[in-house]
Protein backbone atom coordinates (compact mmCIF):
# COMPACT_ATOMS: atom_id res chain seq x y z
CA UNK A 1 0.00 0.00 0.00
CA UNK A 2 2.51 2.68 1.02
CA UNK A 3 4.57 2.26 -2.21
CA UNK A 4 1.59 2.91 -4.52
CA UNK A 5 1.05 6.38 -3.06
CA UNK A 6 4.00 8.23 -4.70
CA UNK A 7 3.58 6.38 -8.03
CA UNK A 8 0.42 8.16 -9.27
CA UNK A 9 2.08 11.46 -8.39
CA UNK A 10 5.05 10.55 -10.60
CA UNK A 11 2.83 9.67 -13.59
CA UNK A 12 0.84 12.82 -12.92
CA UNK A 13 3.98 14.92 -13.19
CA UNK A 14 5.03 12.97 -16.27
CA UNK A 15 1.67 13.66 -17.90
CA UNK A 16 1.89 17.35 -17.04
CA UNK A 17 5.41 17.68 -18.45
CA UNK A 18 4.47 15.81 -21.65
CA UNK A 19 1.36 17.98 -21.97
CA UNK A 20 3.34 21.18 -21.63
CA UNK A 21 5.79 19.83 -24.24
CA UNK A 22 2.98 19.00 -26.66
CA UNK A 23 1.44 22.44 -26.14
CA UNK A 24 4.78 24.13 -26.78
CA UNK A 25 5.31 22.14 -29.98
CA UNK A 26 1.77 22.98 -31.09
CA UNK A 27 2.34 26.66 -30.35
CA UNK A 28 5.60 26.53 -32.30
CA UNK A 29 3.78 24.96 -35.24
CA UNK A 30 1.10 27.65 -35.11
CA UNK A 31 3.80 30.32 -35.03
CA UNK A 32 5.54 28.73 -38.00
CA UNK A 33 2.26 28.50 -39.91
CA UNK A 34 1.56 32.16 -39.24
CA UNK A 35 5.02 33.09 -40.44
CA UNK A 36 4.64 31.02 -43.57
CA UNK A 37 1.23 32.54 -44.25
CA UNK A 38 2.68 36.01 -43.84
CA UNK A 39 5.58 35.18 -46.14
CA UNK A 40 3.24 33.75 -48.78
CA UNK A 41 1.10 36.85 -48.53
CA UNK A 42 4.22 38.98 -48.97
CA UNK A 43 4.88 37.21 -52.24
CA UNK A 44 1.36 37.81 -53.48
CA UNK A 45 1.71 41.52 -52.66
CA UNK A 46 5.06 41.49 -54.40
CA UNK A 47 3.64 39.90 -57.55
CA UNK A 48 0.89 42.52 -57.65
CA UNK A 49 3.52 45.23 -57.31
CA UNK A 50 5.45 43.82 -60.24
CA UNK A 51 2.27 43.81 -62.35
CA UNK A 52 1.52 47.39 -61.35
CA UNK A 53 5.02 48.54 -62.29
CA UNK A 54 4.81 46.76 -65.61
CA UNK A 55 1.49 48.50 -66.22
CA UNK A 56 3.10 51.78 -65.21
CA UNK A 57 5.94 51.28 -67.77
CA UNK A 58 3.39 50.60 -70.50
CA UNK A 59 1.24 53.55 -69.48
CA UNK A 60 4.22 55.93 -69.46
CA UNK A 61 5.32 54.70 -72.85
CA UNK A 62 1.74 55.21 -74.15
CA UNK A 63 1.69 58.68 -72.55
CA UNK A 64 4.99 59.54 -74.28
CA UNK A 65 3.55 58.30 -77.59
CA UNK A 66 0.29 60.25 -77.09
CA UNK A 67 2.25 63.43 -76.24
CA UNK A 68 4.52 62.96 -79.32
CA UNK A 69 1.46 62.44 -81.56
CA UNK A 70 -0.22 65.54 -80.10
CA UNK A 71 2.87 67.64 -80.88
CA UNK A 72 3.16 66.17 -84.33
CA UNK A 73 -0.45 67.17 -85.01
CA UNK A 74 -0.65 70.51 -83.21
CA UNK A 75 2.94 71.58 -82.78
CA UNK A 76 1.98 72.85 -79.34
CA UNK A 77 4.89 73.25 -76.92
CA UNK A 78 2.96 71.70 -73.96
CA UNK A 79 2.88 68.37 -75.82
CA UNK A 80 6.60 68.46 -76.21
CA UNK A 81 7.09 69.03 -72.47
CA UNK A 82 4.67 66.12 -71.68
CA UNK A 83 6.65 63.82 -73.97
CA UNK A 84 9.95 64.70 -72.37
CA UNK A 85 8.49 64.20 -68.88
CA UNK A 86 7.07 60.78 -69.71
CA UNK A 87 10.19 59.63 -71.57
CA UNK A 88 12.35 60.67 -68.64
CA UNK A 89 10.16 58.71 -66.15
CA UNK A 90 10.17 55.45 -68.19
CA UNK A 91 13.76 54.32 -67.35
CA UNK A 92 13.04 54.91 -63.63
CA UNK A 93 9.90 52.77 -63.88
CA UNK A 94 11.78 50.01 -65.70
CA UNK A 95 14.58 50.12 -63.13
CA UNK A 96 11.96 49.72 -60.36
CA UNK A 97 10.44 46.81 -62.28
CA UNK A 98 13.86 45.25 -62.72
CA UNK A 99 14.45 45.68 -58.98
CA UNK A 100 11.15 44.00 -58.13
CA UNK A 101 11.90 40.84 -60.10
CA UNK A 102 15.46 40.44 -58.98
CA UNK A 103 14.54 36.98 -57.63
CA UNK A 104 13.33 35.72 -61.01
CA UNK A 105 16.04 35.35 -63.75
CA UNK A 106 13.47 34.61 -66.51
CA UNK A 107 11.63 37.86 -65.83
CA UNK A 108 14.96 39.73 -65.50
CA UNK A 109 15.87 38.57 -68.95
CA UNK A 110 12.44 39.51 -70.32
CA UNK A 111 12.56 42.90 -68.61
CA UNK A 112 16.02 43.64 -70.00
CA UNK A 113 14.62 42.91 -73.52
CA UNK A 114 11.61 45.08 -72.67
CA UNK A 115 13.97 47.84 -71.61
CA UNK A 116 15.79 47.74 -74.95
CA UNK A 117 12.57 47.63 -76.91
CA UNK A 118 11.08 50.51 -74.97
CA UNK A 119 14.32 52.49 -75.41
CA UNK A 120 14.20 51.84 -79.14
CA UNK A 121 10.56 52.84 -79.31
CA UNK A 122 11.27 56.01 -77.40
CA UNK A 123 14.23 56.67 -79.70
CA UNK A 124 11.95 56.26 -82.77
CA UNK A 125 9.40 58.65 -81.22
CA UNK A 126 12.23 61.08 -80.46
CA UNK A 127 13.51 60.79 -84.02
CA UNK A 128 10.05 61.67 -85.47
CA UNK A 129 9.89 64.64 -83.11
CA UNK A 130 13.32 65.88 -84.22
CA UNK A 131 12.24 65.63 -87.83
CA UNK A 132 9.07 67.65 -87.09
CA UNK A 133 11.10 70.26 -85.19
CA UNK A 134 13.52 70.42 -88.09
CA UNK A 135 10.49 70.89 -90.34
CA UNK A 136 11.13 67.78 -92.30
CA UNK A 137 8.35 65.60 -93.62
CA UNK A 138 7.51 62.44 -91.66
CA UNK A 139 9.26 59.32 -92.86
CA UNK A 140 6.57 56.58 -93.37
CA UNK A 141 9.23 53.86 -92.80
CA UNK A 142 9.95 55.35 -89.42
CA UNK A 143 6.26 55.24 -88.57
CA UNK A 144 5.99 51.66 -89.66
CA UNK A 145 8.99 50.58 -87.59
CA UNK A 146 7.51 52.54 -84.67
CA UNK A 147 4.31 50.53 -84.97
CA UNK A 148 6.23 47.25 -85.12
CA UNK A 149 8.21 48.29 -82.17
CA UNK A 150 5.00 49.06 -80.24
CA UNK A 151 3.64 45.67 -81.17
CA UNK A 152 6.78 43.99 -79.94
CA UNK A 153 6.61 45.84 -76.64
CA UNK A 154 3.00 44.85 -76.06
CA UNK A 155 3.77 41.21 -76.78
CA UNK A 156 6.70 41.24 -74.46
CA UNK A 157 4.66 42.94 -71.72
CA UNK A 158 1.94 40.33 -72.19
CA UNK A 159 4.53 37.60 -71.73
CA UNK A 160 5.90 39.17 -68.58
CA UNK A 161 2.39 39.71 -67.31
CA UNK A 162 1.40 36.12 -68.04
CA UNK A 163 4.48 34.86 -66.21
CA UNK A 164 3.73 37.09 -63.25
CA UNK A 165 0.08 36.10 -63.22
CA UNK A 166 0.95 32.43 -63.19
CA UNK A 167 3.28 33.20 -60.30
CA UNK A 168 0.47 35.07 -58.60
CA UNK A 169 -1.80 32.06 -58.97
CA UNK A 170 0.85 29.79 -57.44
CA UNK A 171 1.49 32.25 -54.65
CA UNK A 172 -2.16 32.79 -53.91
CA UNK A 173 -2.52 29.05 -53.78
CA UNK A 174 0.35 28.96 -51.32
CA UNK A 175 -1.33 31.58 -49.17
CA UNK A 176 -4.50 29.52 -49.20
CA UNK A 177 -2.50 26.48 -48.20
CA UNK A 178 -0.67 28.30 -45.41
CA UNK A 179 -3.96 29.65 -44.12
CA UNK A 180 -5.50 26.20 -44.08
CA UNK A 181 -2.47 24.94 -42.23
CA UNK A 182 -2.68 27.74 -39.72
CA UNK A 183 -6.34 27.15 -39.10
CA UNK A 184 -5.65 23.46 -38.72
CA UNK A 185 -2.78 24.11 -36.29
CA UNK A 186 -4.81 26.53 -34.21
CA UNK A 187 -7.72 24.10 -34.21
CA UNK A 188 -5.44 21.24 -33.18
CA UNK A 189 -3.93 23.40 -30.46
CA UNK A 190 -7.38 24.29 -29.23
CA UNK A 191 -8.54 20.68 -29.22
CA UNK A 192 -5.30 19.60 -27.59
CA UNK A 193 -5.63 22.21 -24.85
CA UNK A 194 -9.22 21.29 -24.14
CA UNK A 195 -8.27 17.59 -24.17
CA UNK A 196 -5.38 18.26 -21.84
CA UNK A 197 -7.54 20.21 -19.44
CA UNK A 198 -10.13 17.44 -19.41
CA UNK A 199 -7.41 14.82 -18.98
CA UNK A 200 -5.79 16.68 -16.08
CA UNK A 201 -9.15 17.19 -14.46
CA UNK A 202 -9.95 13.47 -14.78
CA UNK A 203 -6.48 12.56 -13.50
CA UNK A 204 -6.74 14.83 -10.50
CA UNK A 205 -10.24 13.49 -9.83
CA UNK A 206 -8.90 9.97 -9.90
CA UNK A 207 -5.90 10.94 -7.81
CA UNK A 208 -8.15 12.57 -5.23
CA UNK A 209 -10.41 9.53 -5.33
CA UNK A 210 -7.46 7.20 -4.74
CA UNK A 211 -6.10 9.46 -2.01
CA UNK A 212 -9.50 9.45 -0.33
CA UNK A 213 -9.65 5.65 -0.62
CA UNK A 214 -6.12 5.28 0.67
CA UNK A 215 -6.75 7.69 3.50
CA UNK A 216 -9.82 5.68 4.46
CA UNK A 217 -7.82 2.46 4.30
CA UNK A 218 -5.04 4.06 6.30
CA UNK A 219 -7.48 5.24 8.94
CA UNK A 220 -9.00 1.78 9.07
CA UNK A 221 -5.58 0.20 9.40
CA UNK A 222 -4.64 2.69 12.11
CA UNK A 223 -7.86 1.94 13.96
CA UNK A 224 -7.21 -1.80 13.75
CA UNK A 225 -3.64 -1.27 14.88
CA UNK A 226 -4.83 0.84 17.80
CA UNK A 227 -7.38 -1.80 18.72
CA UNK A 228 -4.79 -4.55 18.44
CA UNK A 229 -2.44 -2.47 20.59
CA UNK A 230 -5.11 -1.88 23.17
CA UNK A 231 -5.94 -5.56 23.19
CA UNK A 232 -2.27 -6.41 23.53
CA UNK A 233 -1.87 -3.84 26.28
CA UNK A 234 -4.88 -5.37 28.02
CA UNK A 235 -3.46 -8.85 27.65
CA UNK A 236 -0.07 -7.72 28.91
CA UNK A 237 -1.69 -6.12 31.92
CA UNK A 238 -3.74 -9.26 32.48
CA UNK A 239 -0.71 -11.50 32.16
CA UNK A 240 1.37 -9.20 34.33
CA UNK A 241 -1.36 -9.35 36.95
CA UNK A 242 -1.50 -13.13 36.62
CA UNK A 243 2.27 -13.36 36.93
CA UNK A 244 2.25 -10.99 39.89
CA UNK A 245 -0.52 -13.10 41.45
CA UNK A 246 1.40 -16.30 40.79
CA UNK A 247 4.53 -14.73 42.21
CA UNK A 248 2.64 -13.54 45.29
CA UNK A 249 1.23 -17.04 45.69
CA UNK A 250 4.71 -18.48 45.34
CA UNK A 251 5.95 -16.03 47.97
CA UNK A 252 3.11 -17.01 50.27
CA UNK A 253 3.85 -20.66 49.58
CA UNK A 254 7.52 -20.19 50.34
CA UNK A 255 6.58 -18.28 53.46
CA UNK A 256 4.34 -21.10 54.58
CA UNK A 257 7.03 -23.65 53.86
CA UNK A 258 9.60 -21.57 55.71
CA UNK A 259 7.40 -21.16 58.77
CA UNK A 260 4.81 -23.91 59.02
CA UNK A 261 6.42 -26.92 57.41
CA UNK A 262 9.40 -26.69 59.68
CA UNK A 263 7.53 -26.47 62.97
CA UNK A 264 6.26 -30.09 62.98
CA UNK A 265 9.65 -31.30 61.79
CA UNK A 266 11.32 -29.52 64.63
CA UNK A 267 8.82 -31.01 67.06
CA UNK A 268 9.37 -34.54 65.71
CA UNK A 269 13.10 -34.11 66.20
CA UNK A 270 12.60 -32.52 69.60
CA UNK A 271 10.50 -35.35 70.89
CA UNK A 272 12.74 -38.03 69.37
CA UNK A 273 15.65 -36.36 71.20
CA UNK A 274 13.55 -36.20 74.37
CA UNK A 275 12.89 -39.94 74.04
CA UNK A 276 16.61 -40.59 73.67
CA UNK A 277 17.40 -38.52 76.73
CA UNK A 278 14.55 -39.06 79.15
CA UNK A 279 13.44 -42.59 78.22
CA UNK A 280 16.84 -44.00 77.32
CA UNK A 281 16.87 -46.40 80.27
CA UNK A 282 13.57 -47.97 79.27
CA UNK A 283 14.28 -48.30 75.54
CA UNK A 284 15.70 -51.32 73.73
CA UNK A 285 18.80 -50.79 71.62
CA UNK A 286 16.64 -51.07 68.50
CA UNK A 287 14.28 -48.41 69.86
CA UNK A 288 17.23 -46.10 70.38
CA UNK A 289 18.38 -46.68 66.78
CA UNK A 290 14.88 -45.93 65.51
CA UNK A 291 14.67 -42.72 67.53
CA UNK A 292 18.12 -41.69 66.25
CA UNK A 293 16.99 -42.40 62.68
CA UNK A 294 13.88 -40.30 63.16
CA UNK A 295 16.13 -37.41 64.22
CA UNK A 296 18.48 -37.89 61.27
CA UNK A 297 15.62 -38.07 58.76
CA UNK A 298 14.09 -34.90 60.12
CA UNK A 299 17.40 -33.03 59.97
CA UNK A 300 17.78 -34.13 56.35
CA UNK A 301 14.29 -32.96 55.49
CA UNK A 302 14.97 -29.63 57.12
CA UNK A 303 18.08 -29.20 55.02
CA UNK A 304 16.05 -30.11 51.94
CA UNK A 305 13.54 -27.41 52.78
CA UNK A 306 16.33 -24.91 53.38
CA UNK A 307 17.94 -25.72 50.02
CA UNK A 308 14.63 -25.67 48.17
CA UNK A 309 13.80 -22.28 49.64
CA UNK A 310 17.23 -21.01 48.63
CA UNK A 311 16.69 -22.36 45.12
CA UNK A 312 13.21 -20.90 44.77
CA UNK A 313 14.44 -17.57 46.16
CA UNK A 314 16.75 -17.37 43.15
CA UNK A 315 13.71 -17.42 40.86
CA UNK A 316 11.29 -15.25 42.76
CA UNK A 317 13.40 -12.41 44.10
CA UNK A 318 15.11 -9.57 42.26
CA UNK A 319 18.89 -9.96 42.48
CA UNK A 320 20.76 -6.76 43.25
CA UNK A 321 23.91 -6.88 41.13
CA UNK A 322 27.03 -5.08 42.24
CA UNK A 323 30.81 -5.25 42.11
CA UNK A 324 31.93 -8.35 43.99
CA UNK A 325 35.50 -9.46 44.69
CA UNK A 326 35.38 -13.26 44.43
CA UNK A 327 38.56 -13.42 46.55
CA UNK A 328 36.68 -11.95 49.51
CA UNK A 329 33.72 -14.23 48.89
CA UNK A 330 35.99 -17.25 48.78
CA UNK A 331 37.66 -16.29 52.09
CA UNK A 332 34.26 -16.06 53.79
CA UNK A 333 33.19 -19.39 52.29
CA UNK A 334 36.34 -21.10 53.52
CA UNK A 335 35.67 -19.68 57.00
CA UNK A 336 32.09 -21.03 56.95
CA UNK A 337 33.21 -24.48 55.82
CA UNK A 338 36.11 -24.56 58.26
CA UNK A 339 34.78 -27.50 60.30
CA UNK A 340 34.02 -29.55 57.17
CA UNK A 341 37.51 -28.82 55.83
CA UNK A 342 39.10 -29.71 59.14
CA UNK A 343 37.13 -32.95 59.52
CA UNK A 344 37.99 -34.16 56.03
CA UNK A 345 41.58 -32.88 56.35
CA UNK A 346 41.05 -31.31 52.91
CA UNK A 347 43.82 -29.40 51.22
CA UNK A 348 42.26 -26.26 49.73
CA UNK A 349 44.53 -24.15 47.52
CA UNK A 350 43.16 -20.80 46.47
CA UNK A 351 45.22 -19.10 43.82
CA UNK A 352 44.89 -15.37 44.39
CA UNK A 353 43.89 -13.09 42.90
CA UNK A 354 40.39 -14.19 41.91
CA UNK A 355 38.48 -11.98 39.47
CA UNK A 356 36.12 -9.20 40.46
CA UNK A 357 32.73 -9.63 38.82
CA UNK A 358 29.27 -8.11 38.67
CA UNK A 359 26.92 -10.21 40.78
CA UNK A 360 25.00 -10.71 43.99
CA UNK A 361 27.29 -11.34 46.92
CA UNK A 362 24.90 -13.68 48.77
CA UNK A 363 24.23 -15.83 45.72
CA UNK A 364 27.93 -15.90 44.81
CA UNK A 365 28.76 -17.06 48.33
CA UNK A 366 26.14 -19.79 48.01
CA UNK A 367 27.55 -20.90 44.64
CA UNK A 368 31.15 -20.99 45.88
CA UNK A 369 30.10 -22.71 49.11
CA UNK A 370 28.19 -25.41 47.21
CA UNK A 371 31.09 -26.01 44.81
CA UNK A 372 33.71 -26.13 47.56
CA UNK A 373 31.70 -28.43 49.83
CA UNK A 374 30.95 -30.73 46.87
CA UNK A 375 34.66 -30.86 46.03
CA UNK A 376 35.44 -31.86 49.61
CA UNK A 377 32.52 -34.29 49.89
CA UNK A 378 32.82 -36.35 46.72
CA UNK A 379 36.06 -38.22 47.34
CA UNK A 380 36.61 -41.97 47.69
CA UNK A 381 36.40 -43.02 51.37
CA UNK A 382 39.63 -42.48 53.24
CA UNK A 383 41.15 -40.22 50.61
CA UNK A 384 42.22 -36.72 51.54
CA UNK A 385 40.39 -34.20 49.32
CA UNK A 386 42.50 -31.75 47.33
CA UNK A 387 40.78 -28.67 45.92
CA UNK A 388 42.30 -26.10 43.61
CA UNK A 389 40.47 -22.81 43.12
CA UNK A 390 41.61 -20.26 40.55
CA UNK A 391 40.19 -17.73 38.13
CA UNK A 392 40.88 -15.24 35.36
CA UNK A 393 39.25 -12.69 33.06
CA UNK A 394 38.50 -13.42 29.39
CA UNK A 395 36.26 -11.72 26.81
CA UNK A 396 34.45 -9.52 29.30
CA UNK A 397 33.68 -12.44 31.60
CA UNK A 398 35.18 -13.37 34.93
CA UNK A 399 35.88 -17.08 35.25
CA UNK A 400 36.29 -19.09 38.43
CA UNK A 401 37.32 -22.73 38.41
CA UNK A 402 37.00 -25.27 41.23
CA UNK A 403 39.05 -28.38 40.52
CA UNK A 404 39.05 -31.41 42.76
CA UNK A 405 40.82 -34.75 43.03
CA UNK A 406 37.55 -36.53 43.78
CA UNK A 407 35.51 -39.23 42.14
CA UNK A 408 34.57 -37.09 39.12
CA UNK A 409 31.31 -37.23 37.20
CA UNK A 410 30.55 -39.58 34.33
CA UNK A 411 30.35 -37.29 31.24
CA UNK A 412 26.85 -38.63 30.44
CA UNK A 413 25.65 -36.97 33.64
CA UNK A 414 27.39 -33.64 33.05
CA UNK A 415 24.11 -31.90 32.22
CA UNK A 416 21.95 -33.83 34.67
CA UNK A 417 23.92 -32.83 37.75
CA UNK A 418 22.68 -29.23 37.41
CA UNK A 419 19.00 -30.27 37.66
CA UNK A 420 16.94 -29.94 40.84
CA UNK A 421 16.90 -33.13 43.00
CA UNK A 422 19.39 -34.81 40.68
CA UNK A 423 21.56 -37.15 42.69
CA UNK A 424 24.07 -39.67 41.41
CA UNK A 425 24.79 -41.34 44.71
CA UNK A 426 22.90 -42.93 47.60
CA UNK A 427 22.20 -41.03 50.77
CA UNK A 428 24.40 -43.39 52.74
CA UNK A 429 27.37 -42.93 50.43
CA UNK A 430 27.30 -39.16 49.93
CA UNK A 431 24.52 -37.38 51.80
CA UNK A 432 22.92 -34.38 50.13
CA UNK A 433 19.73 -32.85 48.84
CA UNK A 434 20.48 -32.73 45.11
CA UNK A 435 19.87 -29.00 44.94
CA UNK A 436 23.38 -27.60 45.42
CA UNK A 437 24.42 -27.64 41.74
CA UNK A 438 20.95 -26.53 40.63
CA UNK A 439 21.55 -23.43 42.76
CA UNK A 440 25.00 -23.03 41.16
CA UNK A 441 23.64 -23.00 37.63
CA UNK A 442 20.43 -21.07 38.35
CA UNK A 443 22.35 -18.49 40.37
CA UNK A 444 25.00 -18.04 37.67
CA UNK A 445 22.30 -17.66 35.01
CA UNK A 446 20.30 -15.16 37.06
CA UNK A 447 23.45 -13.01 37.21
CA UNK A 448 23.98 -13.26 33.44
CA UNK A 449 26.58 -15.99 33.62
CA UNK A 450 26.78 -19.75 33.19
CA UNK A 451 28.11 -22.88 34.85
CA UNK A 452 29.54 -26.07 33.41
CA UNK A 453 31.47 -29.13 34.45
CA UNK A 454 34.13 -31.36 32.92
CA UNK A 455 36.49 -33.98 34.21
CA UNK A 456 40.15 -33.33 34.93
CA UNK A 457 42.76 -35.59 33.27
CA UNK A 458 43.24 -37.46 36.54
CA UNK A 459 39.50 -38.13 36.95
CA UNK A 460 38.39 -35.38 39.28
CA UNK A 461 35.68 -32.85 38.55
CA UNK A 462 36.35 -29.35 37.27
CA UNK A 463 33.54 -26.83 37.70
CA UNK A 464 33.73 -23.59 35.82
CA UNK A 465 31.49 -20.58 36.50
CA UNK A 466 31.47 -17.61 34.12
CA UNK A 467 30.14 -14.26 35.34
CA UNK A 468 29.92 -10.83 33.70
CA UNK A 469 32.92 -8.63 34.45
CA UNK A 470 32.37 -5.31 36.24
Amino acid at each position, binding site marked *: MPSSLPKPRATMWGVIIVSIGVLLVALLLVGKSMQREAESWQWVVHTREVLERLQSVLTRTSEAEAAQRGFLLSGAEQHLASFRQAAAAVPTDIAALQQSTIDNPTQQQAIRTLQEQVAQRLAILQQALQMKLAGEALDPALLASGLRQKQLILELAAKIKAEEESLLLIRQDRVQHARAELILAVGALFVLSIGLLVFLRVMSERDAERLRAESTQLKEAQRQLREANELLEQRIQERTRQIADANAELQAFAHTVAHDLRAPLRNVE*GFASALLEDEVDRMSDEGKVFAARISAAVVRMDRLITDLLAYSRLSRSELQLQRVDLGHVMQAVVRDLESQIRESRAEVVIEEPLPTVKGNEGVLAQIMSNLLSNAIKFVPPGIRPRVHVFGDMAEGMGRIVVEDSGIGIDPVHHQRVFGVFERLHGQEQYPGTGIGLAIVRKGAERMGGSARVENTPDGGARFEVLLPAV
Partner: protein
Amino acid sequence: MEQHQMGIPSILLVEDNPDDVLLTRRAVRKAGLQASLSVVGDGDEAVAYLDATGAFSDRKAFPMPSLILLDLKLPKRSGLEVLQWIGKRQALATTPVIVLTSSTEEEDIRQAYEYGANSYLQKPVAFNELVGLLHRLGLYWFDTNLTAPRTAVSS
Protein backbone atom coordinates in the same frame (compact mmCIF):
# COMPACT_ATOMS: atom_id res chain seq x y z
CA MET B 1 2.13 -20.22 84.69
CA GLU B 2 5.41 -20.72 86.39
CA GLN B 3 6.49 -19.61 89.78
CA HIS B 4 8.54 -16.42 89.61
CA GLN B 5 11.45 -16.06 91.92
CA MET B 6 12.45 -12.54 92.78
CA GLY B 7 15.84 -11.35 91.47
CA ILE B 8 16.22 -13.67 88.54
CA PRO B 9 15.51 -12.38 85.05
CA SER B 10 12.27 -13.33 83.34
CA ILE B 11 11.74 -14.24 79.71
CA LEU B 12 8.48 -13.73 77.85
CA LEU B 13 8.08 -16.37 75.16
CA VAL B 14 5.52 -15.48 72.50
CA GLU B 15 4.79 -18.80 70.77
CA ASP B 16 1.56 -20.38 69.56
CA ASN B 17 2.73 -23.94 68.92
CA PRO B 18 2.28 -25.95 72.17
CA ASP B 19 4.89 -28.49 71.06
CA ASP B 20 7.38 -25.70 70.55
CA VAL B 21 6.43 -24.27 73.96
CA LEU B 22 7.00 -27.65 75.57
CA LEU B 23 10.32 -28.20 73.84
CA THR B 24 11.49 -24.62 74.52
CA ARG B 25 10.73 -25.03 78.24
CA ARG B 26 12.73 -28.24 78.19
CA ALA B 27 15.59 -26.57 76.30
CA VAL B 28 15.63 -23.63 78.75
CA ARG B 29 15.94 -26.09 81.58
CA LYS B 30 18.62 -28.11 79.78
CA ALA B 31 20.54 -24.97 78.89
CA GLY B 32 20.66 -24.11 82.58
CA LEU B 33 19.26 -20.62 82.07
CA GLN B 34 18.82 -18.80 85.33
CA ALA B 35 15.54 -17.19 84.26
CA SER B 36 11.84 -17.58 84.72
CA LEU B 37 9.77 -18.23 81.61
CA SER B 38 6.33 -16.76 80.91
CA VAL B 39 4.47 -17.84 77.81
CA VAL B 40 1.72 -16.21 75.76
CA GLY B 41 0.10 -17.87 72.73
CA ASP B 42 -0.58 -15.02 70.29
CA GLY B 43 0.22 -11.42 69.41
CA ASP B 44 -2.79 -9.93 71.19
CA GLU B 45 -1.90 -11.78 74.40
CA ALA B 46 1.68 -10.57 74.12
CA VAL B 47 0.43 -6.98 73.88
CA ALA B 48 -1.94 -7.50 76.83
CA TYR B 49 0.83 -9.05 78.91
CA LEU B 50 3.30 -6.23 78.20
CA ASP B 51 0.57 -3.65 78.79
CA ALA B 52 -0.53 -5.45 82.01
CA THR B 53 -4.18 -5.36 80.95
CA GLY B 54 -6.98 -7.93 81.15
CA ALA B 55 -5.89 -11.27 82.51
CA PHE B 56 -2.32 -10.00 82.91
CA SER B 57 -2.97 -7.03 85.24
CA ASP B 58 -1.14 -8.64 88.14
CA ARG B 59 2.49 -7.59 87.77
CA LYS B 60 3.56 -9.96 90.53
CA ALA B 61 2.25 -13.01 88.69
CA PHE B 62 3.21 -11.61 85.32
CA PRO B 63 6.42 -9.63 85.79
CA MET B 64 7.82 -7.27 83.16
CA PRO B 65 10.19 -9.44 81.10
CA SER B 66 13.94 -8.79 80.89
CA LEU B 67 13.91 -10.36 77.45
CA ILE B 68 11.24 -11.14 74.87
CA LEU B 69 11.50 -14.21 72.62
CA LEU B 70 9.12 -13.51 69.77
CA ASP B 71 7.89 -15.85 67.04
CA LEU B 72 6.89 -14.09 63.82
CA LYS B 73 4.12 -16.41 62.69
CA LEU B 74 1.41 -15.85 65.29
CA PRO B 75 -2.39 -15.96 65.36
CA LYS B 76 -4.26 -12.64 65.56
CA ARG B 77 -1.53 -10.01 65.79
CA SER B 78 1.62 -11.13 63.93
CA GLY B 79 5.11 -10.98 65.41
CA LEU B 80 5.94 -8.01 63.20
CA GLU B 81 2.88 -6.13 64.45
CA VAL B 82 3.90 -6.88 68.05
CA LEU B 83 7.36 -5.50 67.21
CA GLN B 84 5.77 -2.32 65.84
CA TRP B 85 3.62 -1.98 68.93
CA ILE B 86 6.64 -2.44 71.22
CA GLY B 87 8.55 0.14 69.23
CA LYS B 88 6.00 2.78 70.17
CA ARG B 89 6.11 2.06 73.94
CA GLN B 90 8.58 4.21 75.81
CA ALA B 91 8.43 1.76 78.75
CA LEU B 92 9.73 -1.06 76.58
CA ALA B 93 12.49 0.92 74.90
CA THR B 94 15.22 -0.86 76.88
CA THR B 95 13.79 -4.41 76.69
CA PRO B 96 15.66 -6.54 74.17
CA VAL B 97 13.39 -8.32 71.70
CA ILE B 98 14.80 -11.45 70.09
CA VAL B 99 12.98 -12.92 67.13
CA LEU B 100 13.01 -16.72 67.33
CA THR B 101 11.34 -18.18 64.30
CA SER B 102 11.56 -20.83 61.55
CA SER B 103 11.99 -18.50 58.60
CA THR B 104 15.27 -17.42 57.11
CA GLU B 105 13.53 -15.49 54.33
CA GLU B 106 15.41 -12.25 53.72
CA GLU B 107 12.17 -10.26 53.74
CA ASP B 108 11.30 -11.51 57.26
CA ILE B 109 14.78 -10.76 58.59
CA ARG B 110 14.90 -7.29 57.03
CA GLN B 111 11.43 -6.33 58.31
CA ALA B 112 12.13 -7.67 61.81
CA TYR B 113 15.19 -5.45 62.12
CA GLU B 114 13.34 -2.53 60.56
CA TYR B 115 10.67 -2.81 63.24
CA GLY B 116 13.26 -2.81 65.99
CA ALA B 117 14.23 -6.42 66.73
CA ASN B 118 17.51 -6.64 68.64
CA SER B 119 18.40 -10.06 67.30
CA TYR B 120 17.07 -12.60 64.83
CA LEU B 121 17.54 -16.32 65.48
CA GLN B 122 16.32 -19.28 63.49
CA LYS B 123 14.79 -22.11 65.48
CA PRO B 124 17.21 -24.98 64.85
CA VAL B 125 15.64 -28.21 63.74
CA ALA B 126 17.75 -30.33 66.10
CA PHE B 127 16.72 -30.07 69.72
CA ASN B 128 20.29 -30.16 70.96
CA GLU B 129 21.11 -27.17 68.82
CA LEU B 130 18.19 -25.30 70.40
CA VAL B 131 19.67 -26.10 73.81
CA GLY B 132 23.03 -24.78 72.68
CA LEU B 133 21.44 -21.68 71.19
CA LEU B 134 19.55 -20.86 74.40
CA HIS B 135 22.68 -21.42 76.42
CA ARG B 136 24.61 -18.94 74.31
CA LEU B 137 21.66 -16.59 74.42
CA GLY B 138 21.77 -16.65 78.24
CA LEU B 139 25.52 -16.13 78.22
CA TYR B 140 25.20 -13.13 75.99
CA TRP B 141 21.98 -11.35 76.99
CA PHE B 142 22.03 -12.07 80.73
CA ASP B 143 25.71 -12.47 81.59
CA THR B 144 27.47 -10.26 79.00
CA ASN B 145 25.10 -7.67 77.62
CA LEU B 146 24.39 -4.59 79.74
CA THR B 147 20.89 -3.12 79.80
CA ALA B 148 19.82 0.28 81.03
CA PRO B 149 17.89 0.31 84.31
CA ARG B 150 14.23 0.21 83.51
CA THR B 151 12.46 3.56 83.79
CA ALA B 152 9.61 3.73 86.27
CA VAL B 153 6.62 2.07 84.75
CA SER B 154 3.11 3.03 85.62
CA SER B 155 1.08 -0.12 85.34
